[in-house]
């Protein structure tokens, strides 16, 4: 039953995450944190962070992580297979038709509406992560934020990291490693 639930949750994540790894974040958050309570919001953000540091897509990383925590190795495999199952079927079908007809109008049309939606989905997930990073998860709702509780170190890290990314376009991994190092010094030793 639990395996079925894992499979079904990640099947939905695999089926509805379109347009790159970040777009999967709100879906994973909904299934894993809000609906099934497999992870807390803090743990979820940690998984996103770990996903950024390790190879592999976010959806598959979180499928493995959640499956492993909920019911061991077999759970991890079930969740991962659930996650890639819809892609396998749909991509193979489209590949078949592509090599037969070479016409992608239907996909391109759907994509026209999806592309802007994906941007806002990513923005929304990013804001949730930002709120958590800046307020240590103490702020539950967006409107109830108490500005005096802001984590100054995290705020400075966010702003400098963002500026550096915009200006020099480095590999994001370096920015995160830098943030980790500064975090270690500030939170641990000061």
């Amino acid at each position: 039953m639990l395996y079925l639930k894992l499979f079904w949750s990640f099947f939905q994540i695999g089926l509805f995450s379109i347009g790159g790894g970040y777009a999967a974040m709100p879906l994973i958050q909904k299934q894993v944190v809000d609906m099934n309570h497999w992870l807390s919001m803090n743990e979820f953000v940690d998984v996103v962070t770990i996903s950024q540091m390790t190879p592999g897509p976010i959806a598959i990383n979180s499928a493995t992580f959640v499956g492993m925590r909920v019911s061991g190795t077999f759970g991890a495999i079930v969740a991962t297979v659930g996650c890639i199952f819809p892609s396998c079927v749909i991509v193979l079908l489209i590949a078949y038709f592509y090599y037969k007809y070479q016409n992608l109008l239907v996909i391109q049309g759907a994509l026209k509406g999806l592309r802007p939606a994906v941007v806002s989905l990513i923005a929304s997930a990013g804001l949730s992560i930002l709120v958590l990073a800046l307020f240590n998860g103490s702020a539950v709702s967006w409107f109830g934020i108490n500005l005096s509780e802001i984590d100054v170190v995290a705020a400075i890290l966010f702003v400098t990291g963002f500026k550096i990314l915009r200006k020099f376009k480095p590999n994001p991994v370096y920015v995160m490693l830098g943030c980790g190092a500064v975090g270690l010094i500030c939170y641990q030793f000061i």
Partner: protein
Amino acid sequence: MHTPLPYLDKAVACIYDKIISKLRLMGDTSIYMNKSIRLYGKLFTSTFYLSAFTFGGGYVIIPLMHKKFVEKYRWIEEKEMLDLTAIAQSTPGAMAVNASILIGYRLAGVFGAFVTILGTILPPLIILSVISLFYNGFQENAVIKAILKGMNAGVAAVVADVTVTMGKGIINEKNMFAVLIMIVSFSAVFFFNMDVILIILACAILGLAVTIYGRYKQRGMT
């Protein structure tokens, strides 16, 4: 009695031909087998390698695949790779997985696709399994906690950067429809907590409708 002979000759020749071609085929399949096993092996190792070294997000894997399959092995042409990228982007699921399915299917059929899928998902499966085993101990460790906390702010910055880049791309298209969708879907998710799946479906249908309507109008004018 020489009339049936040509037929007999023909029949014998035909059977002989068939046997020879069967034999040749059998000999060939063993060669093919070796060849295809080598191809599967190469597909597996190259996708495993690509997946193991693709850090941070799916888009990174496309240039790496381009280098390997278009430039190095010359298995796929430049323009075809562009189309495959478009399909990988526009189909549901992780981009790295989709791209490797397409390449596996293109080079070695459905079974090839399964080989490349395996190669792509094994590295994250193994790495994250190991990490999740250590995570509980990790989480209580003050040093790790401090590092993760700093990194969470970094992730927020990375996501913000991606959002700004993508958002700018949409706004620069100067398409009212796209901007409107962006604003409406953002407020629906963030402020009204609407179901993400519903929003995705609605936007896909809307985009499709607008595209088909545009085509229809174009055709009506010419």
